């Protein structure tokens, strides 16, 4: 059983973080990031051709992390592969001992660095979860029987800040029905709004881990407000970043403060350091986790 499954089973407060595979074959920096996270991080998300920018794959990076003793959460998106390839990749992941699988839609190909490529989207994230669940039960999407079936802890994502939130909740419910055993959220900057969201999904019986992004600069905050759907960094936080001399320390303090405030309402946090992996232990410490 994966550490993540174990923690969920024991109703522990879950802490996960994330790395992004590099563009090119130099894995050094990416793997080094994992070293910074420290013991409290139970598992590490590995993004799948994140932002539709061509790079090393999720599975290969997960295998590398595992070799070093870390527990990966493999992300899989629907953009680049049809149902044959997606199901095959799920089997591939299993034989390399990958135990956690996070299924997502994926950013549209036109937003990446190969905007002229053909997007696939043969399945959506709910169908991908259902496909994985089917494989775990020994059957593929066409009803074919498997000789040996994989075993995963399946997860999905939700974006609590998106309107209409009802639509987000409906889709999240479908993900859970399709087999998701945990949910990670888009990054949270407004604890009160998050509390209201968690109130609306009280009936959900799988743990929800709040996404935390470390603010690195005023520019980054403004960029996210403008370009990242469902994320809004409050003006006071932007002011805080503007006023500080030590961006890193303030970014860490803000992230820790958000975690302290939302901790009572969720079952864990997923910290996305976006290159500042070394700040993760300090955030965890200041957040009193």
């Amino acid at each position, binding site marked *: 059983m994966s550490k993540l499954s174990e923690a969920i089973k024991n109703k522990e407060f879950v802490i996960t973080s994330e790395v992004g595979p590099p563009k090119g074959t130099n894995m050094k920096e990416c793997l080094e990031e994992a070293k910074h996270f420290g013991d409290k991080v139970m598992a590490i998300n590995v993004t799948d051709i994140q932002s539709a920018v061509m790079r090393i794959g999720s599975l290969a990076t997960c295998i590398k992390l595992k070799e070093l003793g870390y527990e990966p959460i493999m992300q899989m998106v629907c953009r680049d592969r049809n*149902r044959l390839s997606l199901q095959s990749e799920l089997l591939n992941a299993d034989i390399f001992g990958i135990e956690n699988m996070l299924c997502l839609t*994926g950013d549209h190909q036109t937003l990446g660095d190969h905007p002229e490529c053909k997007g696939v*989207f043969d399945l959506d994230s709910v*169908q991908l979860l259902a496909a994985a669940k089917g494989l775990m039960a020994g059957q593929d*999407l066409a009803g074919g029987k498997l000789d040996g079936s994989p075993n995963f802890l399946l997860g999905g994502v939700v974006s609590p800040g998106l309107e209409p939130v009802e639509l987000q909740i409906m*889709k999240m419910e479908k993900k859970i029905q*399709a087999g998701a055993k945990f949910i990670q959220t888009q990054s949270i900057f407004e604890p009160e709004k998050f509390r209201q969201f968690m109130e609306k999904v009280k009936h959900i019986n799988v743990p929800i881990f709040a996404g935390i992004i470390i603010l690195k600069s005023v520019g980054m905050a403004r960029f996210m407000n403008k370009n990242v759907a469902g994320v809004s960094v409050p003006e006071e936080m932007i002011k805080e970043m503007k006023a500080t001399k030590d961006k890193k320390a303030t970014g860490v303090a803000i992230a820790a403060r958000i975690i302290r405030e939302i901790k009572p309402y969720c079952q864990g946090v997923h910290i996305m350091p976006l290159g500042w992996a070394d700040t993760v232990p300090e955030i965890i410490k200041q957040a009193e986790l």
Partner: protein
Amino acid sequence: MIIAKLKPFDEIKEMLEDYRKILVLGCGSCVAVCMAGGEKEAGLLTTQLQMAFELDKSGKTVETITILRQCDREYIEEVKEKLGQYDAILSIACGVGVQFTAEVLDGTKILLPGLNTTFLGATAEPGTWVERCLACGDCVLDETGGVCPVTMCSKSLMNGPCGGHEEGKCEVERTRDCGWVLIYERLKKLNKLDLLKTFKGPKNYGAVKRPDKIIHEAYQPVAVEKEEAKDKK
């Protein structure tokens, strides 16, 4: 209807480089409605080409005719002989029309496309056309309040939106509505939001065997034979 737009003039001109006697062949149906390849547009393009060739002193001639439909053998046959008089035919029908005219002429004449065929759409307002259907062969509009998830969602998602919409707009283009927000709003008005709760399985992308073919029941070989047998009696 089929929506298309004229190729850039320079691209068209380059295509015509090797030919002297050119015919611009317009089509009087879909592409006439979307103001890309009808009689009027054929006339305009012909004049433009004539002027350009005159400036070049290339000695090329350009004439034009327009037929009602280039996707119908009957109308092409009517002008087949005339088409024989030119070195090249620049068809400004959709891709179907260009191919069908070429098929009728069967290698006796080169056909060149003057349009880029773009989508199946409707007239949103005068001069504006919008895409609405990808001809998937397995229509699900009954489940989505008459808004097509395959077409109106940039990722053709079947079970709800991705995380990329913001203020009702799609992540691909912030000026375009998110298909799933449209579906949600329509179903809400219809008081049928419950339709969204059911899991939609993977779509049957094999429903259309591209290139597909449809034969109306009455024209199935068996049906035709039966009719003929009746006649004999």
